[in-house]
């Protein structure tokens, strides 16, 4: 009887672990990538107060690195660019030329745990409108 019970418990545990792993994959399929895209376009996401303290950044634009918990994932964001990489000035700004366009590159990696395997990653280029 004890043997049967132990075998049953092991089976149940195994099934649960398998189901949990499947659920984790399904969760990744639903929100990991959209979280990555969201953070790519926003260097300071508007987080719930319960996790807002986990988001931290180092450096300043156009070179900025950030990380923290977003939507249940550990997200790391890296934006790099050259301050001198001005691709255009806005002649309509007042005074003219006050606004410049800069190109930066953003890389985002989403993980289930800090230091865990990547669940999703996204890279893009941003054109930033900045005041020099």
């Amino acid at each position: 009887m004890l043997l049967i019970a132990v075998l049953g418990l092991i089976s149940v545990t195994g099934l649960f672990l398998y189901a949990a792993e499947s659920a984790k994959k399904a969760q990744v399929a639903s929100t990991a990538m959209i979280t990555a895209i969201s953070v790519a376009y926003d260097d300071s996401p508007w987080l719930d107060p319960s996790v807002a303290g986990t988001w931290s950044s180092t450096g300043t634009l156009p070179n900025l690195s950030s990380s923290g918990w977003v939507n249940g994932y550990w997200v790391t964001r890296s934006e790099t660019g050259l301050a001198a990489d001005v691709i255009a000035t806005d002649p309509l700004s007042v005074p003219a030329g006050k606004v410049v366009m800069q190109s930066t590159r953003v890389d985002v990696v989403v993980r289930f745990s800090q230091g865990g395997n990547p669940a999703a990653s996204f890279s893009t280029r941003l054109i930033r409108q900045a005041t020099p």
Partner: protein
Amino acid sequence: MMLRVEPQAEGPREPAGRSQPRPPGQGFTLVELMTAMGMAMVITTVVLSALMQFWRASDRVTVRLAMHSKAALVVDQLSFHLTALQQHTALVAEWVDVGAAGSPDPRMRLLFMRGVFDQNNWDYSSYSDYPTWPMPTSTDLVWELWEWRASNHCLYSATNGQLPRHASGTLPNGSHLNINGVDYGNLDFINLPQPHRLLPLPWQASLNANMLFPTVPGNLATSPSMIPGDVGDWTDLSNNLVPVLTGVSTDAQDPANPASWDGVTDFGIQLRLRNGTVREFTTASAYGTLVIPGVRIDGRPGPTDGDGAQTLADANISGPGLRPDLVRLRWMMRDRRTNTQVPFSFSFPLPGFAVSP
């Protein structure tokens, strides 16, 4: 291995492995029975406890997965629609109590217009000043409303209704649709919701004044079906609201008390304007309305058309027409049955360049 079968003696069969045969007629001792029952109880308790834990964990995983799936649906829809947001139309964010005195009904709203333009969307004729009139051939402008209700913890969405199509043949023979000197005759067109670059408060009343051709003496009188009526106005949007984000499980909810329902228990809207400033509405905020006028994108900085003095330069981050470059939403999904709470935060880039805050 060889098995040997011994002749069975009288009395009950002895348990396997017992070294000494039990004397005939003698049952189990009290100690043996109590030991066996104790072991059975312990094993049963452990198994039941493990199963309970398993089912609870399974429930939580299922609920959490459903929450993420629902969030993905909302983000997918909003991303698609906000990407097509029209910069020339007003944008409204609002946290307002629409309930009667003594029965509050707070709602969080985001209203905007989306669509896709082509070269026929704007009137570039020689007429003096129609910078905000769409051409009648425009077919793809849609007002869109997202509304979260604190009363039942549900997020709703609506778009304007179906647009009636009118062919030029419906006009009286020989007549052209002439509006303030602009001749729209001989055109097939679909009645459109009005873009509304400005929405003076109360913005609902302004949006309800939704006649694409508001001052037409004569022509519309002979063809009243060309009046868009309620299509794309506030009444239309209000009537079309449908729930898109609700609770995950409904069996634990009290029908008599919708405010206690699970679902989206908190909702917030934050707009990052092009000068880097942030305007936000949360359930902890004071009630308020933010109407951001549209910017003129037809290239004609005419300040004397009666709807303000904005020019194309207003679209810049140094001008007063501060359009947002980013819409941020956050909400909390709650399920009390499984004691699960998941906060979600998403940012939606709007058309145009990102700003450097």
